[in-house]
């Protein structure tokens, strides 16, 4: 995880100069979105499925203590160990201790956003444990020393040529940049890692409370290797990722891949219940479930934002967000990009000074809320964040002044008229063909790239008496 020093605005400006990034992100998100439309239709009444998904997630959040309790009991009864971690540091410490106890030299990982969030790889490196990402996209960005730029397509911003360069460095010889060569190279490399990894670490798409199982949705099968080959399996999950039963899991199995990549089902669904049992030939000797809070219970207590925890990390909101599609994921600065990132980053970090500008990276077009398979009102939440930012006095004084003036002018017809007259007077030297094309103070963000319409010589309300008379002449009976 990299923490960028700049503001959202500066990071966005940087991304806008990267034409390749913008094109790559658009092509991939278009593909996902088109696939989603098809996959949605094949499921029948998509709105009914969304509502089921929302209801399950909302129910779990309303009874999270109960379901976490059930999950923990079930995991323990099947021989697994459970670690409840309040902070990122706690979670990292637990995993570091497990690695030390096993004298681990290498850890193989299957894709997990939570481990990005708690910066696990860095901590493992610090104690001399090599962590290898085995999801192809994650493997690529790990080689590039970058962070994921999309929740489900972490290397969305990389070209085949970029990947070939990275792989050539690993190989110590040139690797051709065609897809087959690249995937074969990664396959060879990763297979060596699978066989030598001391610990397997995975995320958890969902944990099923009734049986203490964890479910992983993957497309490359690496999840199965990571969970079965090493002698120790550590699952890291955000504390909200619980579903009550396998029936509920089935709903999520339908919603998540359809929403994210437009697949009806991911290629592999791996369900793991505890460590290897007596008589079994496969699976780890030790099974650990690390449940990470790291700010989530704070969100749970917050009635304005609790629904954000319904998120199933499908990335559908990213794929349709016009802002994400222009600037990609790194511009959001932390682990979670796009609309969901702009909502949860300020909450998880509880740092308004650093992340309070993220909710402004939205035109509030509501495409995110429409795309969300569990109906999180993302665009409303972005507004709620802005309300808090304003209330905390973080917005620029000129902006606060502007809205004070707006309130004064727009609550009194007399003052509104005066404000209009003033605008008409002041704009006079700047108007050309009913537009203002000069760079105006306060409007510079607009006028740098677009002309701005001038105030009309007469307002509609000044024209209304004439319009009313027109109706009378025509024999109409309009009210005035």
């Amino acid at each position, binding site marked *: 995880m990299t923490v960028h020093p700049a503001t959202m605005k500066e990071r966005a400006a940087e991304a806008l100069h990267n034409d390749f990034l913008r094109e790559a992100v658009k092509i991939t998100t278009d593909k996902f979105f088109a696939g989603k439309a098809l996959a949605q239709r094949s499921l029948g009444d998509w709105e009914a499925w969304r509502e089921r998904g929302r209801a399950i997630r909302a129910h779990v959040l309303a009874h999270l203590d109960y379901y976490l309790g059930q999950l923990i009991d079930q995991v323990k009864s099947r021989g697994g160990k459970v670690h409840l971690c309040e902070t990122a540091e706690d979670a990292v410490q637990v995993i570091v201790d497990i690695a030390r106890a096993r004298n681990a030299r290498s850890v193989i990982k299957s894709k997990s956003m939570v481990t990005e969030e708690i910066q696990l790889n860095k901590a493992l490196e610090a104690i001399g444990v090599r962590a290898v990402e085995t999801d192809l996209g994650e493997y690529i960005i790990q080689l590039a020393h970058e962070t994921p730029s999309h929740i489900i397509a972490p290397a969305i911003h990389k070209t085949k040529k970029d990947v070939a360069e990275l792989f050539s460095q690993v190989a110590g010889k040139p690797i051709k940049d065609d897809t087959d060569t690249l995937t074969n190279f990664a396959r060879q490399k990763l297979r060596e890692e699978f066989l030598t990894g001391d610990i397997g670490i995975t995320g958890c798409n969902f944990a099923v409370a009734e049986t203490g199982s964890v479910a992983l949705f993957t497309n490359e099968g690496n999840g199965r290797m990571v969970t079965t080959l090493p002698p120790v399996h550590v699952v890291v999950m955000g504390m909200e990722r619980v579903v009550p039963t396998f029936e509920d899991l089935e709903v999520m199995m339908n919603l998540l891949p359809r929403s994210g990549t437009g697949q009806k089902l991911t290629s592999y669904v791996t369900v793991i219940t505890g460590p290897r049992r007596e008589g079994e030939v496969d699976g780890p000797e030790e099974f650990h479930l690390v449940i990470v809070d790291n700010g989530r219970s704070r969100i749970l207590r917050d009635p304005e934002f609790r629904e954000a925890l319904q998120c199933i990390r499908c990335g559908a909101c990213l794929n349709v967000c016009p802002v994400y599609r222009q600037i990609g994921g790194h511009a959001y600065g932390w682990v979670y990009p796009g609309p969901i990132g702009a909502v949860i980053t300020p909450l998880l970090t509880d740092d308004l000074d650093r992340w309070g500008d993220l909710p402004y990276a939205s035109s509030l077009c509501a495409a995110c809320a429409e795309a969300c398979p569990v109906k999180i009102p993302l665009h409303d939440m972005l507004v709620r964040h802005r309300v808090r930012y304003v209330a905390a006095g973080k917005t620029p004084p000129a902006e606060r002044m502007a809205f004070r003036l707006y309130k004064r002018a727009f609550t009194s017809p007399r003052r509104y008229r005066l404000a209009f007259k003033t605008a008409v007077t002041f704009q006079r030297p700047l108007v050309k063909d009913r537009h203002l094309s000069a760079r105006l103070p306060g409007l510079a963000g607009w006028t740098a790239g677009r002309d701005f319409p001038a105030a009309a010589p007469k307002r509609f309300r000044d024209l209304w008496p004439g*319009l009313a008379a027109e109706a009378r002449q025509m024999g109409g009976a309009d009210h005035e």
Partner: protein
Amino acid sequence: MRVSLFVTCLVDSLFPEVGVSTVRLLRRLGAEVDFPENQICCGQPAFNAGYHPEARAVAEGWLDAFSSSDHIVSPSGSCGGMVVHGYEELFADDPTRLAQAREVRGKVYELSQFIVEVLGLEDVGARYPARVTYHPSCHATRLMGVGDAPVRLLRRVKDLEFVELPFAEECCGFGGTFSVKMGDVSTAIVSDKIRHIQETGADLVVGTDMGCLMNIEGRLRRIGSPVRVMHLAQLLEEGVQ
């Protein structure tokens, strides 16, 4: 049928001709139009920017202005969306105003929605010889549920050649204060929108919300494009035979 015009502050002070066309069009379709003169703005600019005390003060004025209306029609889905969707959030802690907002909610229509759904008309008797594409505004689509009403109206205009806009439902990048605060991202988004408009070969792009249209037009003018921009009300009213 009595209709109260919700003119919107943007139309009132920047694009009054759109208000004029809206009134004339509604009249021609048989409605009696009144104009509650105490209306100023629905409060959306302050609401979206996070200035809710300011937004509430302005929105209360709006509620009072339209308290006795039967049907409220607006040439903007975004401003209509503010009333039907935003007021719920804005007045969550004020039971009196919330009740008032909920009562008025069922009476608010975006213009094309009103014509198609309430008046039951698709052919308004207009003729407009041009190659036309249509940009569906986000709030009209997602907050007001306007659907394809504007397209159905356009398809019935004589001599008008309608062309679908690729990626029609992607935002034009306006977003109120977003267009100023993140001006370069906003400009990048509208540039994509314009690329798609140009792909259609249309000479005219029509919309139902002046916020989006002034954004699109502002960029078209800046790059010197000959493509014109028009509100649906203007096309249907000016294009009458």
